[in-house]
């Protein structure tokens, strides 16, 4: 697949965070929204109805899926960023006493936020032949009917879970765990749709383990195998990238 030029990528990296609103704009937005919802502040009491319905509709098992999905975007923050873990359940209707504050605490951001690409850039990979038939995409509809779910869709989901778990391990600076997961992916899905993600992640993991020679060898092999992959630039320079901040 055609990739973007490095200069275009640089532009995208620079502008990626330039569209975010300011904290002040978000504060205004929150206040105005609370007013529209007819509540004093945007806390749990404002949404007890929706939340209670959600509680009824969402089983504990399916919520685990949501947590997993959200965790894919959650990585350890270093520096001045403060973690805020709040585990309160939604307040019952009409009782806002146990609700979170209307305005969640704003953790301090690093003074110079960096715009960087992900440890494993989540971009597309080449579609293998077994996925070439249209209509085999993973959609909530297909997943909601497991008996009718195509095998390809199931394998994509399984692949995604393994690769995501590996990326999370890398993000928490646990390259050994990442390698184990990537090896499992390689055994189960040697030509899977996410093979590029897997191989690139292996390069990054080897770098983190200090095995620069192994990483370079694997990177060379990767580039030969997928010279147009969007990961090419990153695997070539993988061992020059700084390791992530250690956990909390």
């Amino acid at each position, binding site marked *: 697949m055609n990739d973007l030029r490095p200069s275009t990528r640089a*532009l995208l990296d620079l502008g990626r965070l330039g569209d975010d609103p300011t904290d002040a704009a978000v504060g205004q937005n929150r206040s105005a929204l609370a007013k529209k919802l007819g509540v004093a502040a945007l806390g749990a009491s404002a949404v007890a109805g929706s939340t209670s319905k959600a509680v009824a509709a969402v089983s504990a098992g399916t919520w685990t899926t949501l947590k997993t*999905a959200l965790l894919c975007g959650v990585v350890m923050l270093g520096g001045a960023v403060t973690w805020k873990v709040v585990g309160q359940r939604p307040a019952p209707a009409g009782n806002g006493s146990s609700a979170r504050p209307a305005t969640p605490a704003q953790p301090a951001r690093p003074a110079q936020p960096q715009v960087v690409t992900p440890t494993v850039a989540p971009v597309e990979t080449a579609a293998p032949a077994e996925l070439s038939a249209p209509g085999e995409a993973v*959609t909530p509809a297909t997943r909601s009917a497991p008996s009718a779910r195509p095998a390809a869709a199931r394998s994509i989901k399984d692949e995604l879970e393994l690769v995501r778990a590996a990326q999370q391990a890398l993000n928490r600076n646990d390259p050994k765990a990442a390698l184990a997961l990537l090896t499992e992916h390689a055994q189960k899905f040697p030509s899977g749709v996410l093979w590029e993600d897997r191989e690139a992640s292996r390069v990054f993991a080897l770098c983190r383990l200090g095995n620069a020679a192994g990483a370079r060898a694997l990177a060379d092999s990767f580039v030969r195998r997928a010279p147009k992959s969007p990961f090419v630039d990153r695997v070539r320079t993988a061992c020059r990238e700084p390791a992530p901040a250690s956990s909390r």
Partner: protein
Amino acid sequence: MNRAAEVGFTATESAAAVSLASPALPTFAEVYAAHVRFVWRTLRRLGVPDKDCDDATQDVFLVVHRKLHEFRPEAPLKHWLFRITSRMARDYRRSGRRKDPTEHGFLPVDSSDIADLQQQSPIDAAERSAAARLIRDLLQELDDAKREVFILAELEQLTAPEIAQALEIPLNTVYSRLRRARQEFEAALERQREPQIGESP
């Protein structure tokens, strides 16, 4: 390295996402805190004028408030939000609507408000805002379908399977749209550069 930036989350979003990862179910307030920036920037990238982004963001979350109980968490919440946001953006663009900003008692937000000058040096903020503005201009040269895929892939950094899930389209459609979107984006950027070359003394 800012680990939050690696996955396209702001620090605030990451903190909120952590709270969502707790054993609790998400409240509307938590969903708002976790994703308001994502919704806002997506609206801008999808072509909603700056002056309308505040209203449009509120409208998205009004829909979320009404439909949160319908959300099925087999897929990430962000995907569901993107679909709502995308529909809202189309609605705003199509109708060209603009409500009186005083209706809600606050002033509209323009581009200069976007970069968070408290957190970045003025130069960084200006560069980011300028780059973001250029990207938005270029995005407007893509059609809706390609623009959405490009935004999710190149700016939100979702994988192709995730994009297929978010947009509820076949995986191969994601690949083909992204390929064409990249070509058109590059071409638009090239056209953007050409006059500058001609203008140089």
